[in-house]
């Protein structure tokens, strides 16, 4: 378990820093209908869809911690929300070990929706109320759909980041 948790950190941290920087510099300044597209969350759900629920949870935890530490939210809020998002996207591997791209994108969309919805919920539970509003009906679909669209591009990065190799099917010899 130790290797499973520690080994990906070597790749997770630098990739996470670059993703976080892109989020802060580009995506934060170009909202779509006043909603900021979440690259870091998209990367988390792509890692979950590519590597399974446990790897998705770890990617969410680490990248969420980075986001928390660089922002103003209490440490652990985004980590918990992104962890849940990665976990949800990773449920795909309960159904198939080698998912098609559209199935991965679908689960990434669901994972991103869960992750983005979990942020105001966790914030409210920790005493930072006022974020659960009707605005969520716009914010969550935009973030989730864009994460699903980015999934095919980000899944190879997510797989590499978590040290997952794609399965290669071989024909059985008689």
């Amino acid at each position, binding site marked *: *378990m130790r290797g*499973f*948790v520690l080994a990906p950190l070597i790749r997770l941290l630098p990739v996470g*820093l*670059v993703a*976080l*920087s*892109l*989020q*802060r*510099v*580009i*995506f*934060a*300044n170009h909202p779509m209908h*006043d*909603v*900021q597209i*979440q690259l*870091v969350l998209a990367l988390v759900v792509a890692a979950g869809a590519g590597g399974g*629920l*446990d790897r998705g*949870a*770890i990617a*969410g*935890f680490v990248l*969420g*911690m*980075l*986001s*928390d*530490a*660089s*922002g*103003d*939210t*209490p*440490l*652990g*809020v*985004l*980590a*918990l929300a992104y*962890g849940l998002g990665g*976990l949800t996207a990773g449920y795909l591997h309960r159904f198939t070990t080698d998912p098609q791209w559209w199935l991965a994108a679908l689960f990434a969309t669901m994972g991103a929706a869960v992750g*983005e919805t979990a*942020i*105001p919920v*966790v*914030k409210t539970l*920790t*005493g*930072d*109320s*006022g*974020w659960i*509003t009707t*605005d969520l009906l716009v*914010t969550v679909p935009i*973030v989730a759909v864009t994460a699903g669209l980015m999934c095919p591009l980000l899944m190879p990065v997510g797989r590499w980041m978590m040290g997952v190799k794609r399965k290669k099917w071989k024909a059985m010899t008689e």
Partner: protein
Amino acid sequence: MFSALSRRRVVALVVLTCLLFITLDRNGNPVIDRVRGVLATVLQPVDTATRAITLPLERVWYGISNYDDVERENQALRDQIEHQKGNDVEARSAILEYRLLLKVQQLASKFNYPTVPALVIGDSPGNFQNTVEINVGSTDGIQVGMPVTNGAGLVGRITRVYPTHSLVKLITDPGYSVPAQVLSSADDEGITGPLPEIPIGGATSSSTSSTTTTTTTVPVTSTTQPGDTAGPTTSTPPATTTTALEVVRETGLLEGQGGNKPMLLRFVDSSSSLANVKVGSIVDTAGGTKGLAPQGIPIGVITRIVSQSGDSADLVEVTPNASLRQLNFVAVVLYVSGTVGP
């Protein structure tokens, strides 16, 4: 591969660690603050490199896609500047008169704190935080809690300070609240005429803020000199007429609502004096030893008054003066709550 037990362990570990960190950070932890500082230091060169790489591409894209919009906006801004030149002259004249009055009455200016200019270098990366990052920090004398303004009014307050940069929580954040006052005079009819009253059935106010009403009567004196009139000069003394100008000050708690929504000014009781609060009235900081900003920083104008059923007080919506989506330059007021003016 991993067994189901180790998977469950991983998930449980992630959840428990998150809860532990949230608990530690909510109560304030110097180790976590240091970790944040280290990450901010690490992230700064990465941000600079990302900005250097993406900025030329961004400009090319803007050049292609937004040229017409920029030209239109430029023209609109030129028209706006022409329009505001007249207002500027009027405002300067009012400020001069105000300073003269303070001097004559031997009063200190209500807002006389030094400021540190700053540049906004980053927006909030998430959809559930209204913050901006500015390029001044503890080395410039910035401290947590200091108010931040721009040319138009109050912008927010400092929530985290690093050596070379700081985070500012904007006034529209639901976690932000500041004591504010509405200044209106009895003869002020407001800008947009009668108040639009929108009843909300069954809505209750859970606010614990207090309401203070102060009525000040300012004598307005006009003096007629005998020499002003044409005709034969007589030895009559100057004729002085005094009329009373009633200024009502309403104090409440101004709270953000998140996103681009206007702020809410909460009053507990709907007293008769609230009738003097009108759409278009100016709202500024109330100050006080427990206030997070000194008295007299403009915040915004009242844009809507929502009456509520039952004993609940009216909700007053205030739109900030400052354009919080397009902040470039701001000023940090070197004021710490509980201090007396310099």
